[in-house]
């Protein structure tokens, strides 16, 4: 018997109702069915011929048939009471061919299917371009339809799960790897780019290094997925610059080599309207502060003029409306303060004294946390340290060491600029993927922030603009509803049982919710538009290093070996 053969495993049973949507299988003594097995039953429809109904097992059970008392099992064990064990499986229909909505009949033979029949059952055969998304428990590949990822029919991927167990980031990286290395993008692959924000640890700073802990069985898994086992081929790694250094040294722990420090210039800050991204704290939008922010931002933008020989700074008007050269971010903040304290500057307008004070307090706070990322005349070679995602196929932007406010600033500025560039280009090609974990920080369910606005724009218009968001969060219930609901592909790793009951996970069946509470690292449930139910999938151990100890020239950090993140 080869792996590609279909095996008859049982019959449609007659003690439970069969319907066109779901049915029960009595499993034959010498066979078994497990959850997620793909099965097929052929039934004869009078006058219409044969109907093939395929489905996926979503529950299996075993019981003593017609046993009335719980204690019967002990009697059976002692040889006293003969009882029949009945094993059965519940199947959710995934496909009817031809589309005749009639149930299978009791007694119809059910087979576990492989190969072409399995592909048909899971609609893989109708996917023009299929992206491999993982392996089923029986080591068969699971695909998603690329047209639901790249914006043609749908876009965006959303991943939920408990931190540390759900392996959200690792899976998002695997999905990117599959996109770039499976050949599914064809000639488009060369121009397609990905922007990955590294929000926790330094997991993503080694994407370009092979994983020294990869074993043969992992390599075999890559082979069954039709993927090479190698690190990402073209990776640019960006980390925030260290504070108080003239040189733009990247502020990373375990890796310095090949990492580019990033910062923005005062000129960038003023001319590109970045001020608003300093005001992204929850509650900022409720006060009148937002009003002042936009007034200050647009005034500076309007007034700014380049200064000869100083590409990193600009001149703007001071409180006396005299043009003055602003050489550093510190000077810029001081200038803003002076102008707001002077009633002649035209910036205060109708804002109250209290609102102005609130604005200044926050500006001051932001300066302490974000200021080192905005350099003035002291900056050397600013063009080289400006994040450029066109340079490499995958650009990793490290923000994990930054204060929350600075994280939001970086993500907001980068994503906004990307959005504006794509908008200006007017073409969906080439595609760009944004991988961002902790969406709940950037687009929380409640309140408004410029950050959330940009992400919402991407989730609603990104599909036509070729910007695809691979977003992740611990709890989808804390993320802006529209961002989650716009994702065509939804994935969950281990979920908190209470979280799994929330309506955001309505796509999970009752059994899937229960399973979500038990998923191990490396196992996810994937929901895609063609299938009425989520599929469980496993993905291989990363072929790229996820910590310095896994990299060939890695340092001494050996803890947490072979554990996902």
């Amino acid at each position, binding site marked *: 018997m080869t792996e590609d053969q279909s095996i008859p495993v049982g019959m449609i049973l007659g003690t439970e109702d069969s319907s066109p949507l779901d049915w029960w299988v009595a499993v034959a003594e010498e066979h078994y069915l497990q959850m997620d097995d793909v099965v097929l039953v052929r039934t004869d429809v009078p006058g219409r011929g044969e109907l093939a109904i395929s489905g996926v097992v979503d529950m299996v059970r075993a019981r003593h048939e017609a046993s009335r008392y719980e204690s019967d099992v002990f009697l*059976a064990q002692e040889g006293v009471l003969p*009882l029949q064990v009945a094993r059965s499986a519940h199947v959710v229909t995934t496909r009817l061919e031809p589309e005749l909505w009639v149930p299978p009949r009791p007694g119809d033979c059910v087979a576990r299917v492989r190969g072409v029949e399995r592909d048909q059952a899971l609609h893989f055969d109708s996917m023009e371009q299929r992206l491999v998304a993982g392996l089923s428990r029986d080591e068969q590949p699971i695909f998603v339809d690329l047209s639901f990822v790249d914006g043609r029919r749908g876009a965006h991927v959303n991943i939920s799960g408990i931190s540390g167990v759900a392996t959200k980031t690792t899976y998002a990286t695997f999905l990117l790897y599959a996109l770039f290395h499976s050949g599914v993008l064809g000639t488009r692959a060369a121009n397609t780019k990905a922007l990955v924000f590294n929000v926790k640890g330094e997991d993503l700073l080694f994407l370009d290094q092979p994983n020294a802990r990869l074993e043969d069985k992992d390599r075999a898994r890559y082979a069954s997925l039709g993927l090479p086992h190698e690190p990402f081929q073209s990776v640019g790694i960006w980390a925030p610059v260290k504070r108080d250094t003239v040189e733009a040294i990247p502020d990373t722990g375990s890796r310095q080599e090949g990492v580019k420090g990033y910062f923005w210039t005062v000129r960038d800050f003023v001319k590109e309207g970045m001020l608003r991204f300093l005001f992204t704290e929850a509650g900022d939008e409720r006060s009148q502060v937002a009003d002042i922010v936009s007034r200050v931002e647009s005034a500076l933008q309007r007034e700014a003029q380049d200064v000869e020989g100083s590409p990193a700074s600009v001149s703007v008007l001071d409180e006396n409306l005299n043009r003055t050269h602003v050489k550093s971010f510190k000077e810029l903040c001081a200038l803003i303060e002076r102008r707001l304290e002077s009633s002649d500057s035209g910036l205060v307008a109708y804002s109250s004294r209290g609102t102005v004070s609130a604005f200044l307090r926050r500006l001051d706070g932001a300066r302490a946390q974000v200021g080192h990322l905005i350099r003035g005349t002291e900056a050397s070679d600013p063009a080289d340290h400006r994040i450029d995602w066109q340079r490499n196929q995958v650009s990793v932007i490290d923000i994990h060491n930054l204060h929350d406010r600075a994280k939001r600033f970086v993500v907001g500025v980068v994503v906004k600029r990307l959005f504006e560039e794509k908008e200006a280009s007017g073409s969906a090609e080439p595609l760009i993927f944004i991988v961002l974990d902790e969406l709940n920080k950037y687009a929380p369910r409640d309140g408004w922030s410029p950050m959330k606005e940009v992400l919402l724009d991407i989730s609603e218009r990104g599909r036509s603009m070729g910007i695809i968001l691979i977003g992740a969060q611990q709890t989808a219930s804390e993320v802006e509803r529209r961002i989650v609901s716009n994702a065509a592909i939804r994935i969950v790793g281990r979920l908190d049982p209470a979280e799994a009951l929330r309506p955001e996970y309505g796509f999970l069946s009752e059994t899937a919710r229960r399973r979500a509470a038990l998923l191990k690292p490396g196992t996810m449930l994937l929901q895609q538009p063609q299938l009425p139910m989520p599929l469980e999938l496993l993905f291989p151990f990363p072929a790229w290093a996820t910590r310095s100890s896994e990299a060939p020239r890695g340092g001494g950090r050996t803890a947490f070996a072979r554990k996902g993140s």
Partner: protein
Amino acid sequence: MTVLRIDPWEPEFGASVEAEDDPDRPPPPLEFDEPLAWAPITCMPPATVPCCAFIDGVRRVDTRLFAEEADVVAPALAGSWAVGVAWSSRPPVVDTVKVRRVIVLGRGLDHGTITASIGGHRIEYRVVASDARTPKQVLDKLQDAMRTDEAALAQAVADTGRAEVIVQDGPLDYHGGKPTVGLVKRQTQRYLDTERQRLLAMLEVGQRTPLFRFERGRIPRYSWYARIAPRRRIDGSIAGLVRLESHQEAGLEETRRLADTISGMLPSFAAPMWRDARAPQNLYPVGQLETVLRNRLGERDVVRRAVEAALWRMLDD
């Protein structure tokens, strides 16, 4: 003074003591071969339950019929029965189930086989002509046919040599293979004289009476009573008792050993009172076997409708 005591069986199953015709019918002459006083014999439960084959059958009247030919109207019925084996193996299993269906005709009338259809299946009633004159006699023919199948099954099981003991439901009215015992749940005939009968009330669980030998239907056999479940003080004196039989051919010594084994073993197969309408005499494996067999007979209403449809068809043809 008259004392009232309980018969533990559920009333709809009849009484656990029920004389067929005449309650005072004289017992057959008995021989007492065991060189023992008439006193309880304690039988130790075996360390491990031996591999027993419990053989039983269930029968059912699917529908009662009249067979009419010219001026003769004879009682008849369409009936089904099933026989099978419950093994006390590990795990215990039920197997070798056979289902038969017959039309029994009285007064010597005859008829061809009747085929009824249920769904895509056909069930056949072969015809048994008999001289039965009353509905009860027709029913007895059905019972006899089932008993014949039970005996054949017991013989077949004995031939396999797999069973250490074969326990058959009811008396052993055939010459059979060893080591078979017949288990009589319902006491329909008194065998012992008044003095010996007193011992029955004194039997404790796991105890048996000495053997007694007699002949019925020209089949000589040994028999004994054994208590398989405790008796409450309010229960009748023979509640929890069974009568067992084995073929005389096995010889006295072999039968004594068998009687000890069986009587020691049966209490572990006796169902508690709440569990079965005929507890404790209806043993666990037998009760479960009957459930399986009844299920194999099919839904009575469905079968009955199928027979009616077959009769309609024959009328139309």
